[in-house]
């Protein structure tokens, strides 16, 4: 797709989604905001894992770092009685910066590690998070987490839409910024360097790519995106707690990237939508079956987890390029049927 079509598709999509927030009821708007928040994290993860080949199981911890940075900054500003857009924007920037610093530290170590080793280190990072929050519970308030004073919706919105609509706007704005920045990074020279490092480190080094630097920058940028996602989640829930960023959440993020189509931003979008829609659909399905409360409680959550796991296994075996890969294949087939002379070569 050329840059111009991407731009047009992106703009039309953005306008359509913002228009959607006026129509949807508050609960759906909240779900829309959640999708956007997930998209920030998954987009960063898909760049790191799909384009640069570094597998991270620790993006939940990086998002948590963003959420806590958001919490500290927002509460600090609220104590100074700062209100208005500053109370919204400054904490988000702090979250991005905080997560980027943590990502830089992990990335410096990650640059020397490969595949499963890196996965193991990032896995340990996720498990260390609740340990840290409960050890230093006077700072992080333990398992309960922090309450955050957030910027309320602006006055002029009072008659038109609920808090959820404002949340959706903030989330969509963040997601759009993250996606635009990541897209430019992936399309440009740096994207080529990341792919070169992923495919063959020795060849990349011979071609003049600084392998270690590329890996560290990729990890830092990806962490910053995760931090933005964490900040949006913290803003939406008005809290930052270790329970919200568990190991399972980390695996879900990876799953969203894989099922959507690893290495593509469209794939990150499909994956994030699935991450919100599928548990919701399963929830309403089990509700409609009118099961006994005990059975329903056992199915609740577990069914979605199992289904996600099964889909992830299936995708890896049957369609390694995920939903976006299937869509692309379908489109290429359609195009080649129309004009047999010009069969586009997939990249």
């Amino acid at each position, binding site marked *: 797709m050329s840059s111009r079509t991407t731009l047009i598709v992106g703009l039309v999509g953005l306008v359509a989604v913002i228009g959607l927030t006026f129509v949807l009821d508050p609960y759906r708007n909240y779900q829309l905001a959640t999708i956007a928040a997930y998209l920030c994290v998954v987009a960063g993860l898909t760049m790191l894992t799909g384009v640069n080949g570094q597998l991270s199981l620790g993006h939940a911890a990086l998002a948590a770092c963003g959420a806590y940075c958001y919490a500290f900054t927002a509460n600090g500003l609220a104590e100074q009685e700062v209100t208005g857009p500053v109370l919204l924007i400054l904490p988000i920037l702090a979250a991005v910066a905080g997560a980027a610093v943590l990502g830089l530290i992990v990335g410096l170590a990650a640059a020397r590690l490969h595949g499963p*080793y890196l996965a*193991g280190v990032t896995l*340990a990072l996720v498990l260390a998070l609740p340990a840290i929050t409960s*050890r230093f519970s006077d700072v992080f308030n333990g398992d309960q987490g922090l309450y955050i004073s957030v910027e309320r919706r602006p006055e002029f919105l009072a008659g038109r839409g609920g808090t959820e609509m404002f949340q959706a706007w903030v989330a969509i704005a963040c997601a759009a910024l993250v996606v635009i920045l990541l897209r430019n990074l992936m399309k440009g020279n740096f994207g080529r360097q990341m792919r070169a490092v992923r495919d063959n480190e020795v060849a990349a080094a011979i071609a003049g790519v600084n392998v270690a630097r590329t890996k560290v920058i990729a990890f830092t940028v990806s962490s910053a995106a995760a931090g933005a996602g964490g900040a949006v989640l913290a803003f939406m829930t008005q809290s930052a707690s270790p329970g919200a960023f568990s190991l399972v959440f980390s695996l879900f993020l990876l799953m969203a990237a894989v099922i959507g189509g690893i290495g593509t931003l469209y794939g990150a979008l499909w994956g994030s939508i699935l991450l919100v829609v599928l548990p919701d659909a399963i929830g309403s399905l089990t509700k409609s079956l009118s099961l006994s409360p005990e059975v329903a409680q*056992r199915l609740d959550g*577990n069914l979605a987890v199992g289904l996600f796991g099964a889909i992830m296994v299936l995708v*890896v*075996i049957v369609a*390694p390029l995920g939903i976006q890969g299937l869509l692309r294949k379908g489109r290429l087939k359609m195009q080649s049927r129309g004009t047999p002379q010009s069969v586009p070569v997939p990249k």
Partner: protein
Amino acid sequence: MELERFLFLTVDGLARGAVLAVFALSLVLIWRAARIINFSQGAIAMAATYLAFVVTSATGNYWLGLVAALLGGAAIGFVVERGVMRYVSSVNPLNSVIAALGVLLVIQAIIGMLFGNGYHPMQVPFSQSPLPWLAGLSISAYDLFVFACVGFVVIGLAVLFGKTNVGLRMRAAAFSPELARLLGVRSNRMITLGWMLASALSALAALLVVPTELGLNPHSTDAVFVYAFTIAVVGGLDSAPGAVVGGLVVGVLLSWVSGYLGATLSPVAVLVLLLAVLLIKPGGIFSVTKERTA
């Protein structure tokens, strides 16, 4: 008093480390057989422990439960290898990690649906209070049982791989599957056997360690897996003696950290240790040969 506490922590750490060493050995086995770090190992072990729990509750006999866990673990390992991992393309090494994580989610979900997400307390066959005739060392009968099991496993594996025909075939299939096949070894079968053996071992480790902690829960082996992974990496993924020594060292270290600095810090200590070892010697302390890339 100080010395007594130090001894207690050290012995406790050795017992825990011995169990973790068995778990780490199971990771090393699969790594050597298939060049895969099996991220679903914890879930497989957890499911087998649930099997032991069911059998022990139904019959009242711990030993029947133990046998059920070993057989059940091997069976789950068989299903996972033959049903899933065999079909994962090895072109990209990340694929097998992702597939194993998918298996992990599926197993945890199935167990959660069958048994709920609550904790089930588990019994042990021997007392966990210190033996009077070893006064001062604070070793319990259960610790001795654990040491005996681990010793049996280590010697058994050494004999299997060092002295028997099957062990030789497994080593050959792991070292060079194509060449081994030309020489008449059924490489695929050997890899499956490796998975079954490893899964049974991890089931044993989980069965030994779960009763000493909070109890049985679909996530009760998550942390155990990370500790075992750390041990396997510290010892070098290719080295079985490294896993055993690494297990004991890490076990004692964790016990000291949680005893002197606070129990909640042990995951942090593991993270620091893992990072330190990987940064100083990325192949692990006991690594001798360079890792194969194929």
